[in-house]
């Protein structure tokens, strides 16, 4: 996941293939040939979408990858869908795909196989990264968006779906047998559905986790790290981070993101979810400033005493650099900390860390947080909605997503069949813990106005972290601000844009399930 407000496709589409192989595939079909009705055999094209061609050579060598698939071919949509049928119905049509800034070129390269398989031409519409939100919204509002398909930061789903800017996808999913049930519930429900209808295909499926450094932990444990029991609670994490703090010069006990804005919000949501916090009640009134939310914030304030120097200004780029550089003994961050840490070209801590199960909080529940992420949608005004859907199905298919994970580019798969795959687990250290955690995931609701809400909460939390105000004041201020933003977005007026009953099941999927350990 690219933890900036507007994820760039650079990660996926550039890294998803050794670019040489990609362009080889792309140029092996002379573009106009489909028009003359002569397309390459789909099986041959699909064979080229393989570990050998898509995963970085140095990683293939490092992990002695055999070339066996990191996914289940039966659940890999591109290998199960009937491409001949696709060609019959849609060959010759065009899909316009909104892509962020720097990725326009690599996007086309990454989509060349799709064009070969389907006969559909893809036009890339570059959208400014830094103002993707407003540019996309402006186009939607104009009623005549210049694109058919787009991928965006999943918290914005509410902003785009509520006013009806997105095309419903239920029929397409059924017709083309998209393996929706292979997605973990939390992703399918929150990234894919809104008010009971399907609007998106989950793309980058994020989760926040806790990672610890083996060597340091072992000095205080006296033995190996147990991913279940070494740090079973957050109180324990506070204690451990205190002991590990300054264990070596320049090493801090814990790393976390507490910069103003949504970074702080995410860290706080992460921990508070374990305390049992929900953001809203069934009337969409903010209740996060209650005990559970305070417990989460208190924990942050305690941890902050043992945190690295820059945590009050750390977003994902800073936190990632600190973790991979070895500046922290434990880290509260996304799952990619666990994968990228394994890669010697980026990391100083290879083989010296492990991702553990989410620490619990007494009186709370096991609720690993599904935070951020991105989803892929079709514009309501799309000229070629079905073609756009198929293209998105291609981009989000299990095999390509699995290979993204193998390339450690931060774009994460949300499929059971992938995270449970043995070959994938060899190249993705957190995969087992990650996959098992997802059946208990917590998630924030997709609301219109989610972005300013996340900013407002995070700004207040940051103030508490630096000691300007108390934790309770921060959460109370945040609740007031959130309420105001929500009413500006149509809530509390008798016709809420989001039906609570429809959203509720996705907010916590672990109810009543036995723990994975």
């Amino acid at each position: 996941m690219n933890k900036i407000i507007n994820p760039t496709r650079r990660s996926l589409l550039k890294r998803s293939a050794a670019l040489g192989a990609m362009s080889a595939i792309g140029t092996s079909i002379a573009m106009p040939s489909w028009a003359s009705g002569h397309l390459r055999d789909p099986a041959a094209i699909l064979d080229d979408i393989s570990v050998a061609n898509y995963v970085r050579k140095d990683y293939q060598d490092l992990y002695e990858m055999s070339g066996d698939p990191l996914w289940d071919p039966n659940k890999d949509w591109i290998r199960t869908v009937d491409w001949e049928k696709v060609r019959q119905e849609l060959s010759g049509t065009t899909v316009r795909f909104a892509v962020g800034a720097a990725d326009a070129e690599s996007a086309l390269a990454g989509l060349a196989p799709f064009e070969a398989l389907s006969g559909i031409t893809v036009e890339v519409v570059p959208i400014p990264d830094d103002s993707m939100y407003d540019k996309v919204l402006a186009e939607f509002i104009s009623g005549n968006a210049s694109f058919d398909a787009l991928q965006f930061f999943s918290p914005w789903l509410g902003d785009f779906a509520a006013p009806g800017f997105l095309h419903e996808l239920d029929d397409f999913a059924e017709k083309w047998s998209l393996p929706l049930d292979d997605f973990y519930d939390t992703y399918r429900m929150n990234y894919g559905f809104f008010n009971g209808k399907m609007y998106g295909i989950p793309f980058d499926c994020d989760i926040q986790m806790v990672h610890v450094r083996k060597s340091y932990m072992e000095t205080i444990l006296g033995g190996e790290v147990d991913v279940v029991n070494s740090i079973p609670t957050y109180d324990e994490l506070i204690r451990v981070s205190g002991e590990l703090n300054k264990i070596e010069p320049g090493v801090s006990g814990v790393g976390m993101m507490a910069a103003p804005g949504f970074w702080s919000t995410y860290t706080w949501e992460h921990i508070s979810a374990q305390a049992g916090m929900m953001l809203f009640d069934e009337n969409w009134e903010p209740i996060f400033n209650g005990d559970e939310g305070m417990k989460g914030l208190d924990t942050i304030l305690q941890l902050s005493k043992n945190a690295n120097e820059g945590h009050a200004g750390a977003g994902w780029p800073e936190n990632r650099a600190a973790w991979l550089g070895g500046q922290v003994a434990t880290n509260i961050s996304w799952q990619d900390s666990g994968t990228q840490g394994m890669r010697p070209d980026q990391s100083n801590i290879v083989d010296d860390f492990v991702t553990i199960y989410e620490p619990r909080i007494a009186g709370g529940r096991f609720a690993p947080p599904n935070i951020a992420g991105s989803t892929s949608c079709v514009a309501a005004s799309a000229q070629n909605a079905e073609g756009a859907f198929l293209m998105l199905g291609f981009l989000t298919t299990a095999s390509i997503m699995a290979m993204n994970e193998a390339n450690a580019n931060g774009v994460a798969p949300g499929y059971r069949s992938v995270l449970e795959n043995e070959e994938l687990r060899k190249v993705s250290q957190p995969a087992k813990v990650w996959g098992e955690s997802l059946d208990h995931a917590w998630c924030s609701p997709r609301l219109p106005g989610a972005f300013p809400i996340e900013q407002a909460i995070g700004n207040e939390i940051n103030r508490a972290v630096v000691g300007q105000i108390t934790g309770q004041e921060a959460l109370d201020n945040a609740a007031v601000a959130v309420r105001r933003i929500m009413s500006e977005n149509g809530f509390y007026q008798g016709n809420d844009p989001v039906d609570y009953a429809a959203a509720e099941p996705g907010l916590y999927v672990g109810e009543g399930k036995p723990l994975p350990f």
Partner: protein
Amino acid sequence: MASVRRTKSENLFIRYLILGSWALFCLGPVIWFLSIGFRPRTEIITPQPIYISALSLDAWHMIWSDWPMAKYLRNSVAAIFGSVVIDLALAIPAAYSLARYKYRGREDIGFYILSTRMMAPAIVAIPIFFLFRNMGLLDTIWALMLIYAAINLSIVTWIIRSYMTDIPKELEDAARTDGAGDLRILWEIIIPAVLPGVITAAVIAMIFAINEFLFTLLIASTPDAYTMSVALANFTGGSDGLIYNAIALVAFLAFVPVFLVVIAIQKHLSRGLTMGAVKG
């Protein structure tokens, strides 16, 4: 204009202590940053900073292959060159008018031009954003050119004006008595006479254009229009996080030409920076 004073003075030691310390303060971070540019990525952020590190050209290869560095350069050069041309075309006549003619409102016009130097970009950022967006010029080099030209016009005008006031009136009078029209005088006599001023103005405008950040951030959003100044901010958010060695190299890439050009005009620098108020 004297540039050397007698060296004999008390406290030579103090003088060199102070000047030397500041020189260290200036150059230390620069040298260190240069070393960052030539390191492997994993040696930049570590628990304790690595002062002497391995040499690596990774970043150099990266900025050219993984990023459209050539495009950023092209955009920077094109936008800057274009904006300077616009500025000179507008400023030279204006400067001549302010320098040589006396007419009602001259002081006010001159001051108005000067005052646009004071305009904080943030004040007009939003309207300019909407303006360019409505004109469909967002994310184009043209927009950058227009904006840079606007930012620098006051500086360029006043610098050239200052140099024009230095020209002895006799030169013009002689030409006029030969029957030359005003425009010809401007073109054939004045401009050549103020060439140092024109060059200085162009250089300073160039520097400010290279440095420009806020407008470029708002206007440019793809490699079609990113300049080097804003492209740096690019090296922070992608899947690779902060890539300092690339940032360092780009910083030096932009530094070297600016340094060379400024050294060439350093005699005129203070006059340029103060828009003519202080002769150097």
